[in-house]
Structures are given as C-alpha cells and as structure tokens.
C-alpha cells in the first residue's frame, strides 16, 4: 500500500539531503495566507492524495498579491470539497527559470531509479527525460544531462551543469538512503543559471 507523504515531512527529507525547496507553509485561512505573503507574491496549492495533476485541475494559483490571495483561497476551498482530505499550502513565488522534473521510482526488478527531464507542463508533451538505476555516479549524472534533447535549455548553455549534477547526486542519496520512497516527483524544479529550487514535492511511501 502506498501513501502520500506529508509535504513538510518530504521537505524535511529534502533539507536533510541538501536539496533546496521553496519556502512553504500550510495555511488554514485566507488571513493566514496573507500574513505569510507579507509583501511578496505567493502561490497557493491544494494538496490531496486524490489529485496528481494539480495545475491541470486548477489547484495551483500562481503569483498572488493583495486581495487576489483571499479570492484564490476561497476558490481552492470550494474545489476541495470533492478532494477531501486536503490541505492548502502557501509558497513564496519562485523566480523565473526553466521547469525541470527530478524523479525517482522503485522498480520491482532493478530497485531505485532516478530521472531528470524537462518538467512542468512539458513532461507529458515532450517526454524528454533520462533514466538510470541507482546508485549513480557523477559520470552517470553527466550522461543523463547529455541525453536530454533540451540539455542546452535546461543547463542554460552549460552554466548550471555542475549544480544539476550535484542535485542529481543529492537526489540519488535521498533515494538510496530512504528505502521506503516508492515514487518521487520533484516537479517542477525551477532551474536557473545560478541555482534551482524545488517548488513541488510529491513522495509516495511504501
């Protein structure tokens, strides 16, 4: 039986392995969300075990400021009625960048697999990804990046290649050291020329 790990338990696991994720908090009211935002734009997301495609289902509200926050919050609450149990999470809006996916899965034959690909809404359109069996070595991580057709986009012409290799190695140790992770989606991870941040975490545990 697989179950969805709580977002913040997942975030703590990422922290432990040095994987950066966006500043986030559960919010239980519109006021809560406004307070979290302070003056910067935020994202509101509804998280439910019943919804995989959050953005497709309209469960992600981006770039919210001022009165938009309360409006978005009540919209999510009304959508949530059919998706109980659910929680609403507020996140700081990540800077612009390229959306990639970093994933993992336990294969019944070969054990843990690790994946990198073009992420966000492009995952299913281009299916541009590279996969390896864990544990991987630095060279494997390099090859994975080389295997992507979108490598020049994803690496900003090679500028963040080292950062992505490090990210893959960190996710590799996350997967290898936590046997109970059955599926992992960090999608999207927003990559920039000088860094990255995971803006969504989905971990299914066995």
């Amino acid at each position: 039986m697989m179950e969805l790990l709580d977002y913040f338990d997942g975030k703590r696991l990422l922290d432990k392995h040095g994987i950066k994720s966006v500043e986030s908090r559960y919010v239980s009211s519109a006021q809560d969300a406004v307070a979290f935002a302070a003056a910067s734009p935020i994202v509101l997301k509804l998280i439910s075990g019943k919804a995989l495609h959050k953005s497709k289902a309209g469960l992600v509200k981006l770039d919210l400021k001022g009165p938009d926050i309360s409006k978005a919050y009540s919209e999510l609450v009304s959508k949530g009625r059919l998706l109980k149990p659910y929680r609403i999470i507020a996140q700081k809006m990540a800077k612009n960048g390229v959306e990639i996916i970093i994933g993992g899965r336990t294969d019944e034959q070969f054990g843990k697999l690790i994946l990198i690909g073009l992420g966000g809404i492009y995952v299913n359109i281009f299916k541009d990804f590279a996969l390896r069996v864990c544990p991987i070595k630095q060279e494997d991580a390099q090859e994975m990046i080389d295997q992507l057709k979108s490598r020049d986009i994803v690496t900003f012409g090679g500028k963040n290649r080292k950062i992505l290799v490090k990210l893959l190695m960190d996710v590799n140790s996350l997967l290898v050291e936590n046997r109970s992770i059955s599926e992992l989606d960090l999608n999207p991870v927003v990559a920039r020329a000088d860094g990255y941040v995971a803006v969504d975490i989905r971990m299914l545990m066995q």
Partner: protein
Amino acid sequence: MKKMDLTPMLKPKSVAIIGASRDPDKVGHVILQNYINAGYSGRLYAVNKNADADIMGVKTVRSILDIKEKIDLAVVAIPAQYVPMALEECGRSGAKTAVVVSGGFAEIGNTKLQEDLVSVAEKYGMPTLGPNCLGVMDPRSRIDTLFLPTYKLSRPEVGGVSFVCQSGAVGSTVLDLISGEGFGLSKFISYGNAAHVDEVDILNYLMDDEETKVVIMYVEGIKRGKEFIEIARKITKKKPVVVLKAGRTAAGSAAAHSHTAALAGSYEAHEALFRQYGFTIADDLSDLLNYAKILDSCDFPKGNRVAIITNGGGTGVLSADAIGITESLQLAEFSPSIASSLRKQLPPLVNIRIPLDLAGDADDKRYEIALNAVTSDSNIDMVLAIVLFQTPGADSKLAAKLVSLKERMNKPLIVLSVGAEYTAMHTKMMESAGLPVYESPTAAVRSLAALLKYARYRGMK
C-alpha cells in the same frame, strides 16, 4: 552469485536424446537427425521408453538409467507431463545438464509442472535449460538441439558471436538470418521460460567463454534484477553485448501515481540499465545483426571522425547526411599533407575532400590510393568505403583489394554496397573475409556510431 557451469551443456562429451523417435513427425526425431547431420562426434544415445531396437543407427535405450556412463547433456523432448519424471531419472543417472525443449509449462499456465521441473533441477544441482525453448547450438562442438530441420533453417558458420534468446521464434529467424551474414556463430542459447537457467547464468558463462567475442541477446523480461546488474557491470568490460528488448510500447502504467512512474515504466527501466552498463541497444532485428557484425570484426576507433570514400557521389552525400544526423560522429577532413599527396596521385576530376568521390570509373587501384591515404591520415578515425558494383571499375578485384586493405588498416573499415545479385555475391565474399558490408547509409553509419559508443564505454570504465 552462484555460477552454473554450462560447459557440459555446450561442450558435451556425451548426449542422450530423451524422446528420440523413428517417427519423422516427432520433435525427438528431428533433433536426433540434426545431431547426426551436424556430425556430432561425442557419444550419442537415443532414449525411448518403447524402443526395442536402435533408432537411426544410434544406440538406443529405454531409460537414461540404462546408460553406463554419466551423460553430459540430456535433451528432453517428450510431452510436458512426463518431463519431471524424466528429469528425475536424469538426475539419478548423474547427468550433468539438461535441455527441456518441450512446451506446456508456465507459458500456458501450468506453473505447478514448471515448479516440479525446477525442484528436480535444484535437487540434483543439474543446470536445466528451458522448458519451452529451442535449446542450444554450438557449431564447434557440433551440438544442435534445435527441432527445426536443416533444410528449412540454415545453420550459421563457426565464429565469435553468441546469441542468447528467450523466444524460440525470434531465435530461429535470427539464426537463419545470421547464416546469410558474413559473421559466424559461437553459441546459440534459447532459454524459453528461464525456469532454472536464466539470462544471468548464461551471461555469466559467456563472459568467460573465450570463443565468444560478441554477445547478442533478445530479452522479453529479466527475472533477477539485482543479479543481472551485477553481471551486466562485469561482462561489458570484457566484451560487447548487443541487446534487443521487446515490450517497448508497454509504457509506464497509465494509472501511475506520479509523473515519474508514468514516464519510466518497465521497458524504460531496462533501457536505462542497458545504457548505464554499456550494452549496445538495438532498436530492431536489423540493428542486432548490423551491430554484431561491426563489433565482431572491427577494432575500436580512436576518435569520431569518419572518412567516406565512394564511387558514387549521391550515395556519398547520403552517407554524410546520415553522419550529420548522429550526435556522436563527425565527417573527417584530410590533413593538408595527405590532401596534397592525393592531389598528385588522383585524376584531376576527383575533388580532394570528404566525401571523397573517386568517380564512376574508379577501380581497385584508385581505391587503394585513397585508402592508403586515409590509413596514414591521423585526422581520420574510421572509414566508410562505398562501392557501387554497378559501375565499370568495380569488380571482384576491388572486393579482394578492400579485404586485404582492411587487414593492413589500423582503423575500422566498413563497406556500403547497394544492389542486387552481382552486389550480393561480392558482399558475401567480403563479409566471409571479415569485412562488414552494409546495405544502406543509415545502417552503416548507425553501426559506426554503435562501435564508437562501445569503444568509449570501454575507454571510460
């Protein structure tokens, strides 16, 4: 990992064919006939529970227990329900290995019967191949458990390529195709349901088999993932393994809980593993043969620069295009000194650049000049010689010249020849002499890319 010794199965000093029959419609008849045809020189026995006289002149007994010696290989070709009992007798008689060609086990839902077979094999520590397989073939030791008559399925020559195949149907067709290619066979192992001996055991054996230079394999699924990874890591450091994996369209489960699981299903996991451990991945049956051919006969290139020498301009351009499509290969350029020496030796109508178009009247002498130049040019790593035999200068003399140049050349040389009978004849001549010939620019160029990829893997790991 416990290593199974398959030597008695592939190099048996004695063979018993259980289910051997006088009746030409029986599988056991064809197998016995094949052993006789192949000229197996070990001690051969036929086993048939109703026999009262020798079958086809082969010493015949009613049970393997009646044979005085311990048999190296028992080939079992009787109806499924009698197989566990027959294997039990094999075990008791001290038989070292068994091949069960009979079908009617797990593949049709008879898992219990298959479990019985496995427990007998384990009880006696008797490596047992199959069930539901074609078995083994080794042209050196002249064993051939295939139940397909030689007039229908040509048998390949002796060589360095071993073919491991789960499916009997793919196995037999590819064998038939191999016999038409210029490379020879070391071992053929069709392992069917993989109840006891599976791909891990087979690769483990072939890894240390000195007669095997290249392994090609067709797999539907791998049973022992962890052990397979272990052997995969080791074998590709010693010899190339070309793999064709079936089940490409069975993508990740549609009902997956995550994007990763939706993208990365079982096929993708296999492919990832093959990539990671330096397998050469074939997309189809022609890749399997094309890659086997080049890996069997060419040394590793030192770099990725390919020279094209041709007697047809258009085919040269198409091949250059094919090189452009690959991400790894690059069209070579002559170094200045070689270019000026070629300028002096070749007629004025030949443009000194790659693709080097020697013109439609090029003969063996012109090719020799060009190929000597590319041999000594350090800016060139691999050579694709295009020979269109329809042209006036291309004849058997040229084919022979290419073969002798290949032997002297310290870099990979392959030939591209497109055409019907006259061409096919020369293709065969060149391939038999160890010079790989391809029928299309794409096939030739993809094969060069596969060779380079494996060479790089070996250089890296």
